[in-house]
């Protein structure tokens, strides 16, 4: 295991899914397609794990120029601990999705799209070049558009059209910002740009910062540019594994880009953490309010993703990179991938057998499918932050050391998440419905159960997991944790009371929130408004 070996490996992480995808597509539909896909995913996961172990043990930053050219004339692939963790997470989630969709006999087109999506995500996480990120983002956008309209019967063309047009418009902002950065620093390489911006005036960097952060803001679904997310993640024409990967992994690429680009501009003197703290709080509150008003189980999960991403952004923006909040944010990224994937995959199976996605019409899942119910209940306990589960550890670190006002708002967000989960869990109880018995599918049920159990294990072994994944040694203060547990139980009871009192029947306010939707022009307005807001906030505040 040498440095040279790992450097070569990085290129193959990105290129081998591409080759496998095209070969599977060319060879047509046969028995071996899904077996080859499964083997390929497992091999990829093994090698990303090996890469991660190497990077975390030697504490190196592997920087491999593609082609070995002098200086930074080529494109550099960078694998530090954060990137390696992300590509390991990518390989893991895609492996889970492959197990899940193993029994459904998908056409080669499905595997082509899945592997290409994986290649573009791994490429984004490993890339050290601005323009390369643009090309990979466009590939990911097109692949996701085709995947969310994969099933011809159920597809909603409007969803896909909105997602494609909005994503490709916002990427123009990104290319504009990179153009300014290239002009001022003479290079496109991220590490070289971070060194060179030290010699520039801060006032010169405001405009590229605003342009690039508008793009990042839409990718993370911050307010007010969140409308594309429920359409994409809760789309009716998407197979469930696609929604799971979207909410678990695809949105994390936006957060990853946020981390990388904030680092670059921090060297230049622009500190946007206050702005993103406020934006994260607003996004979390809005996501929770929207999620509570939904009745479709997948839309509930999609809006809750928005809220959790807002929470992660709050954690990443308070304090500095060595602080507990930052670690909490990073750990919440990994946790959210696990429990959201579990919930989406479970919701997919449930909606397939009940032939509906309305939470008012689904009852008695616990008696019908006990294994999935247990897994999903574990994941729900994780997401609300039950003590001893992974969500509570990450939320504890996220909220440590904050002032009393931020603490109150974050606790309100947690209360909202609890209400959402109580509303969601109404599907488990009730009387057993009259649907026909279905065959037990070991692979998909087993994999959901695995994810649910991981939620619990990552909670008990939280400190060890954080040390393994991120290299931070953290310490949980027992008194603080117990206090947080007490607040949790109080919020749980309060949430149950609020749910029973106000939300069992849908009032007019809830109905208005649920059905209001931004049109296309509203979304364009929100993009321009966000851009102007960042310009004003950074320009006149710095």
């Amino acid at each position: 295991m040498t440095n040279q070996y790992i450097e070569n490996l990085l290129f193959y992480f990105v290129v081998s899914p591409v080759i496998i995808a095209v070969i599977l597509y060319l060879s047509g539909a046969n028995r071996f397609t899904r077996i080859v896909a499964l083997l390929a995913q497992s091999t990829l996961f093994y090698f990303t794990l090996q890469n991660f172990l190497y990077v975390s043990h030697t504490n190196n930053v592997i920087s491999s120029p593609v082609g070995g050219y002098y200086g930074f004339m080529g494109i550099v692939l960078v694998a530090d601990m954060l990137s390696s963790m992300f590509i390991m997470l990518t390989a893991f989630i895609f492996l889970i999705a492959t197990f899940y969709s193993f029994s459904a006999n998908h056409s080669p087109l499905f595997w082509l799209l899945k592997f290409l999506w994986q290649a573009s995500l791994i490429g984004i996480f490993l890339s050290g070049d601005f323009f390369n990120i643009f090309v990979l983002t466009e590939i990911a956008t097109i692949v996701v558009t085709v995947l969310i309209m994969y099933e011809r019967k159920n597809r909603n063309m409007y969803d896909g059209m909105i997602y494609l047009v909005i994503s490709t418009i916002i990427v123009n902002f990104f290319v504009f910002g990179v153009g300014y950065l290239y002009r001022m620093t003479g290079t496109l390489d991220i590490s070289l740009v971070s060194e060179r911006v030290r010699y520039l005036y801060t006032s010169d960097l405001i405009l590229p910062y605003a342009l690039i952060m508008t793009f990042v803001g839409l990718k993370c679904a911050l307010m007010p540019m969140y409308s594309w997310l429920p359409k994409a993640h809760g789309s009716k024409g998407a197979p469930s594994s696609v929604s799971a990967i979207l909410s678990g992994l695809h949105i994390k690429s936006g957060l990853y880009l946020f981390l990388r680009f904030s680092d670059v501009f921090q060297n230049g003197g622009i500190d946007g953490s206050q702005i993103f703290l406020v934006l994260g709080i607003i996004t979390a509150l809005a996501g929770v309010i929207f999620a509570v008003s939904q009745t479709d189980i997948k839309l509930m999960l999609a809006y809750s993703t928005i809220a959790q991403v807002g929470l992660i952004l709050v954690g990443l923006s308070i304090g500095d990179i060595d602080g507990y909040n930052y670690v909490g944010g990073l750990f919440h990224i990994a946790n959210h991938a696990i429990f959201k994937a579990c919930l989406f995959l479970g919701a997919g199976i449930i909606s397939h057998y009940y032939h509906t996605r309305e939470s008012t019409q689904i009852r008695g899942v616990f008696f019908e499918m006990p294994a999935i119910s247990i897994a999903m209940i574990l994941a729900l306990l994780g997401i609300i932050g039950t003590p001893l589960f992974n969500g509570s550890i990450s939320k504890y670190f996220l909220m440590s050391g904050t002032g009393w006002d931020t603490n109150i708002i974050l606790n309100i967000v947690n209360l909202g998440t609890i209400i959402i989960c109580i509303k969601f869990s109404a599907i488990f109880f009730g009387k057993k419905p009259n649907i026909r018995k279905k065959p037990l599918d070991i692979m998909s049920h087993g994999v959901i159960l695995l994810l649910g159990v991981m939620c619990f294990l990552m909670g008990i072994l939280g400190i060890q997991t954080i040390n393994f994944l991120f290299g931070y040694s953290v310490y949980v203060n027992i008194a603080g944790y117990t206090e947080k547990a007490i607040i949790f139980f109080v919020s749980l009871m309060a949430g149950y009371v609020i749910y029973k009192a106000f939300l069992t029947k849908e009032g007019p306010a809830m109905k208005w929130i649920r059905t209001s939707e931004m049109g296309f022009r509203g979304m364009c307005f929100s993009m321009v408004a966000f851009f102007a807001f960042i310009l004003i906030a950074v320009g006149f505040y710095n």
Partner: protein
Amino acid sequence: MTTTIMSFWLFCNIFVLFQKKLLSMILWLFLSSIIASLGFLFLGSPDVAMAEATASAFVTIIFIVCFENFFGIKNLQNFIEEENSKTRENIFKKIILPAFVVLCTFALFMNFLPQAPQDTYLKNLYILRASTDVGGQNVVGAIYLGYRVYDTIFEALLLLIAVVAVVHLSHFDGVYKKDGKQSEVKNNAISLFTVRIVAPITVLFGIYLIANGAITAGGGFQGGLAVASFFICRFLIFDIYDIPIKKVNKLEDTIFVAVVIMASLMVFHGFFGEIPPNYLPIAQNIYLFIMNLLIGIKVACGFTILLYRYVAIERN
């Protein structure tokens, strides 16, 4: 001189905004892209000029042909917002408010415009080292086939995905049903001129660009687009739909795999082994020629399939 051409481009774009009919908007956009292509030439970028010219022609063909197939050419001229007459409320709010917002953002943009001078670090390095590192005389070709070949792999991949997306997202069963009606543009002077004189020159020029991409301005992408235009002419003007689409699709995918393999060989081992022979001009020229050829074939196949799918959509 350049500024004059650019201001013509700006006026064309302003006129795009003020059109009511869709067809005139598309044609003004096409005109502005052609003027932009000329402007790129004056900015010292013949490669980009060629790419933009062929690309804008392609986009205009897509707009006009698929709508013609779909709505009928007579309807295209009157294809305005029919629903507009029913909901005419707040017409000033719909025009003045966006204008105000855009003007404010523009003013903010201009306020924060960076004043730093250009840093020519990479530019000087590329111009000095491209012919020895990668070979050939076209620095732009050396960049996207040598230094940034990683990006070129993904650009070719994007073309492949675009073809897949177009096939999957349309309600097309894969069997083209010729509706028996000849295309309306068959027998007039323009189509005859195109077919007899322009198309052969274009395809020869495309092949020239692909073959000489390393020595002069040109390359795989531009040449591929020009060659694709020849095949597109055949079924636009003559209604000849004899291209075996599934085989061309498989050819495109196979060539994409070949492109990736060539690029990976280049990235890791140099094309002919270890580093000293890799700097031999003969090895470099062979690599550049083969890559340009593969990319040219791939792009030609890809765009032909794309437009074939458009033309073959059943009329409603």
